């Protein structure tokens, strides 16, 4: 049967490609991604399942699911004009995605079937830096972490658990790595940016608290504290924490190898295996 051999948490800021192009492979962001790229390669994954919150570039306000499973042979992105990054087509695995969708519905979740989709920086930036040769197929599972009402953190953790069981019910012995993509505290073009700037980190103390709870494996406390109000107080993309929480639902006994925070930037990089 397939199995989850590891799990990763990463940020996905759309300024990363330009930053790394400007500052080179020795800058902190590049080195942190390189560290996770090496970890991912060592896991020899056959498939990636990424929990993602779209910024209204895959979906729109006229039809916005709480959860969605991307079912496609391939998908392209980023579709939101990311500086220093060209659009590319990434391989996926439609049969496995259909299997995930069916299994998760039988586990009493209600995800949308999402086909013929494009993705934005939140999927494309992590894939670009974690699997630059794009040889590993990836499947996005979309979570609405941005437009209230948001799903509860406990629900997202349970979704992760259901995804793990769904993976384990696939008969081929595929090695699967899950990824949670996003920041803990960040505001982008909202009401809490730094003066005159496109972004800001409104709640570095909340980012530090999340880090503490993750390091201590206190997932129940993390879930209890991650209310919609708390997440959105931390910035208009604070709900991206739900991607990490869903990823944590998949890890089932894997150990945290390392987590490297950039608290002043409101995010962290982490690996479990």
């Amino acid at each position, binding site marked *: 049967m397939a199995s989850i051999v590891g799990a990763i948490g990463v940020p996905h800021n759309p300024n990363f490609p330009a930053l790394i192009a400007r500052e080179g492979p020795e800058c902190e962001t590049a080195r942190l991604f390189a560290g996770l790229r090496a970890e991912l390669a060592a896991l020899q994954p056959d498939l990636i399942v990424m929990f993602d919150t779209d*910024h*209204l*570039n895959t979906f*729109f*306000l*006229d039809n916005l699911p709480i959860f969605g499973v991307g079912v496609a042979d391939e998908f392209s992105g980023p*579709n*939101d*004009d990311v500086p220093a990054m060209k659009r590319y087509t990434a391989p996926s695995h439609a049969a496995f995605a259909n299997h995930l969708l069916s299994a998760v519905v039988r586990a009493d979740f209600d995800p949308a079937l999402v086909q013929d989709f494009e993705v934005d920086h939140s999927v494309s930036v992590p894939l670009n830096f974690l699997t630059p040769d794009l040889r590993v197929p990836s499947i996005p599972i979309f979570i609405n972490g*941005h*437009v209230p009402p948001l799903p509860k953190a406990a629900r997202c953790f349970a979704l992760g658990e259901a995804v793990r069981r769904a993976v384990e019910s696939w008969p081929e012995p595929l090695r699967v790595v899950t990824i949670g993509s996003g920041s803990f505290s960040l505001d*982008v*073009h*909202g*009401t*809490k*940016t*730094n*003066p*005159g*700037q*496109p972004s800001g980190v409104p709640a570095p103390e909340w980012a530090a608290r999340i880090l503490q709870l993750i390091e201590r494996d206190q997932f129940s406390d993390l879930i209890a504290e991650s209310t919609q109000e708390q997440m959105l107080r931390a910035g*208009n993309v604070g709900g991206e924490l739900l991607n990490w929480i869903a990823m944590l639902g998949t890890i089932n006994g894997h150990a945290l190898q390392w987590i490297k925070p950039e608290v002043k930037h409101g995010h962290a990089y982490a690996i479990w295996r």
Partner: protein
Amino acid sequence: MSILSVNRLCRDVMRDLTLRKRLQDDPAGALSAYPHPLTDAERAALLGGDVGMLYRMGGNTFLMGYLGRYKVFGLDTASYSERMRAMNEKKAG
């Protein structure tokens, strides 16, 4: 009241270079030709670059951010940020 057309326009500013150019050259004319209905209040707020008002009306922050990023309606990143920061804690409902 739906503000869907404003949100749609904002995303189109990022996706549609022809629309973006028209908005920069002739904002009133471009809005008149925009195929999705806008109310008079929405039109006035857009033409005035009044993103604070649009935010209070339900404009989505990710999408409205494109107005400052792509410099339409007299906005840029700095003025957009200033007007949005003034809305912190003020949004009703």
